[in-house]
């Protein structure tokens, strides 16, 4: 099969077969229509920072692409009537970093965004792409998990549906996302919290993939811990909430921290592996060490 070579000298020089079918909608309705029509045969692209890795000149990797970069309805950060923070799926991490709304509602998301790649990546990578690419090391996902975020999916056929981020991830790169659906918004519900923290232990100080990431949020009233959320990345096929540790802490409080018990509880919550970047043993230890460190800081603040 020969690729058709147009007579245009530029295209000839590039040797690129004009093969990829492109949809470049401006509205969400157009985008959903295209996704509805082609389903899994149509690959959505937002910032391209995951999808474009490994692209080579002259190699058409996708039969059909749905470019979401200019769908204005997919961008933007707002506070809804019920106080929830609503982030369009195609909002870039640079926009998140600059947002006073995010700073107020979920400053950990900004901390996490600052650890993503570097300037070049933050300017293009989107929160929706990060969520849907579903790497176990996705940097924004532990924060979203700790915030009990929900995801709004939409299809032309059925309209919108909302689900918890925890229900969205069903296994390693297994998502509750139909072939004709797009992720349209990320919602962080309004919740009273007094403390949040984020720590990513990566491969280097920038341009790094997480070996372990922990996002935490809690509410302490009059020195009493009301609740705490602890979410981890890179220690399981999907993001995990340390439910056992959370319950233990909610019952016990953070003063006179039962560290050994917390460590034991965490061990049951995380399931890290060995890979080219790190080891299961390291991830297990570091997840526990960093958690204890954060909890000690919380305790000191609350005393």
């Amino acid at each position: 099969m020969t690729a058709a070579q147009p007579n245009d000298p530029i295209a000839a020089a590039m040797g690129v077969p004009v093969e990829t079918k492109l949809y470049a909608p401006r509205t969400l309705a157009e985008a959903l229509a295209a996704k509805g029509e082609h389903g899994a045969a149509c690959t959505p692209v937002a910032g391209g920072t995951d999808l474009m890795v490994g692209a080579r000149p002259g190699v058409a990797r996708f039969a059909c692409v749905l470019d979401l970069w200019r769908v204005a309805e997919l961008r933007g950060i707002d506070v809804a009537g019920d106080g929830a923070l609503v982030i369009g799926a195609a909002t870039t991490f640079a926009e998140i970093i600059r947002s006073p709304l995010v700073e107020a509602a979920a400053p950990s998301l900004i901390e996490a965004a600052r650890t993503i790649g570097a300037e070049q990546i933050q300017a293009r990578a989107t929160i929706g792409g990060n969520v849907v690419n579903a790497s176990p090391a996705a940097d924004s996902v532990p924060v979203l998990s700790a915030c009990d975020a929900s995801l709004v999916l939409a299809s032309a056929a059925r309209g919108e549906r909302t689900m918890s981020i925890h229900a969205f991830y069903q296994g390693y790169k297994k998502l509750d996302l139909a072939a004709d659906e797009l992720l349209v918004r990320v919602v962080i519900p309004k919740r009273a919290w007094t403390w949040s923290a984020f720590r990513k232990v990566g491969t280097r100080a920038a341009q790094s993939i997480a070996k372990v990431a922990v996002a935490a949020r809690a509410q302490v009233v009059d020195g009493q811990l009301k609740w705490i959320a602890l979410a981890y990345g890179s220690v399981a096929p999907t993001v995990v909430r340390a439910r056992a540790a959370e319950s233990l802490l909610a019952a016990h409080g953070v003063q006179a921290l039962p560290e050994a018990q917390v460590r034991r509880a965490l061990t049951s919550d995380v399931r890290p592996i060995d890979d080219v970047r790190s080891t299961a043993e390291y991830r297990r230890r570091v997840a526990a060490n960093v958690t204890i460190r954060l909890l000690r800081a919380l305790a000191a603040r609350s005393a």
Partner: protein
Amino acid sequence: MATGTGVVGRSVARLDGAGKVTGAARYVDDVPEPEAWFGATVRTTIAAGRLEAIVWDPDFDWSRVVRVTADDLPRLGVQVNGVMCIDDAQPVLCAGEILHREEPAALVAAPTQALLHEALCRVKLVERPAGTPPILDLDAAIARGAPVITSYAIRRGDAAAALARAAADPTMKIVEGTYTTGHQEQLYIETCGMVGAPLPGGGVTVHGSLQCPYYVHKALKHLFGLAPEQVVVQQDVTGGGFGGKEEYPSMIGAHAVLLARAANRPVKIVYERGEDMVATTKRHPARVVWRAAFRADGTLAAARVGVDLDAGAYKTLTPVVLSRAILHAAGPYRCDDVSVEGRALFTNTPPNGAFRGFGAPQVAWAYERAMDRAAALLGVDPLEMRLRNHLREGDVTATGQVLRWSVGSTAVLERAAASSHWSGLRAAAAAQRAAAERAGSPLRRGVGVAFCFHGAGFTGNGEVNLKGKAEVELGPRGVVRILAATTDIGQGTRTILPQIAAQELDLPIERVEMEEPRTDRVPDSGPTVASRSCMVVGKIVQEAAAELGRALCRRLENARGLPDGSVARRGSAFFHGDERVAGWEEATHGAEGLRGAHVYHHPAGVSFDDKTYQGDAYPVYGWGADVVEVEVDLDTGETRVVKIWTAHDVGRAINPMVVAGQIEGGVLQGLGWALCEDVVMKDGRMANGRMTNYIIPTALDAPEMVTDIVEAPYFHGPFGAKGVGEIPIDGPAPAVAAAIEDAIGVHLAALPMTPERVLAALEAGSSTMGTR
């Protein structure tokens, strides 16, 4: 010879800077090649066995591309299927025997990238694994008695007897340790690439990203049985080499030429990053075993060192790497009873090759760790340990070489200590640790020092055998042009060589150019390796410029009817006795094309016996000392390098900015090797062959660096200069290890000191988090 104020010693701006900062500089993939097809390599996927067949999909129209396998070599003019390095055992294309993964097995070229990609998807190798499992690392090679590719030994006094005596002497301490290092990937930011083309009359030409045009030239002559003038090799602006483009370009150049001959047109091969990482050469992994005796006063009494290197599957440059390794293995310390034994062992992995340091970093890791071990056992301050033991002028090395000149060893130690405020820095780190412990912080600071030496230029008789040559030619309007095969790969040779010539002739630097490094235009001044470009080639260039000056004197004598030898040059002016008879303009008028040439001249009284490995291993050494401050996070094992102070004796800094740049760049590569550059091998292949997963430092990982240049002039180097390119990478890793040990009390013996290894070492001790 011009002296005093001049361009040498000044931080002249890079002469090739304009192109680099505007994007105009042309690297191989930037050079317009409108006729060139695109080439790529099909590689083996098993570590040992046979290549039984290559299957080309019959549904693909192969007439639209060209393909080359070992069967095609004879009809393409190949005389012997071997890429000449030290020997020609490494095949240019696999002819049946597979000795490592990623061996080139077939080549394909196509008119477009798209077609090339399609073709590559349509070819399969049929490989049969060998009956016995492949040998995949150094431990396996040692355990299974793998073939020894090369071995060397050095003896001074009687180390065995001295060690035996020491073992029985209660006042002496015995230090033993096994120190290991893994591969390191050069990771130049521009991948390898070459363009090959046939020449009318049967010759061939290549241009590309390379360090040594004459190495490629030699390999192509040998491969195709061509005369020297039938092969033209040119270096394009090259985006980093660090040794990684010393030998492998010969292989790539050969591939490009094979495809070019098959296609009868130019063919360009530019490696994708992944291919470059898994297939090309790396630093040799090493295992160095120390057994040494120290006296109560901290001085080294006897040392026995064993060095094992993982050569990979073919010899390539390994003997030279092992040679340098053993010549540095005993360290820059006085010792009367030394025994060094080195072996390079075969493994079924891609052959290892040159990377800045070339065997010296591996043994420096060991000798400095051993020194630290001894210091700790004896309760001697680590800096004091070096001060008591370091080689000084007049001392004798393990090969019996008396260090007669340019020995800035004490100076670099004292300068690094002063610059870093060693004692105060150590005390402050200790105070920080105490305070952090009280406050319940997981951060611990530590300070360490390392000291190293590095023989400049080729070992022993290498330069004598090479007979490097350079010329300085007069161009129009009194401009001079340097003709040398030295390539600028970032280290600034296209600036410092003109500075040297300009100083010699007392000309403004604007009047000095460098010819393009093309084998049909420049003589062979030797490869751009071994920290020799400034010291050796710079001297040859200086002498060639002086020869040009002498030729101009003779010309003036003839023109003016003056007696032979009566005209002498002072700087850029010419004198008959005390009478100035001509300036540069006048003397060079009509003399365009006049040349001065010089061939390497070995300094008198410097000799080395290759058989016994005794004598003057290198004419002169560089000396370096590093002090580093780190902060270790007990929770994660991460080490942050807070700051590093270095002092290096370079003889004379031709261009201080360029020298400092070499030092700082080498230091960061050493820090990367120390902490985060881990080549993960799986089944004989690099498993983390992506920039995402092979970690080099970013600007946020790099510390602020304080760089001190010490000058102990070397009489035989240009204006006193000696080599600096490699020594900066020798010291940082052991300095960091010492600092980590100061911070957290663990003695690490393996590189890299990843957070995983540091945390495991911590956990092997007691719990680190305390109770607060």
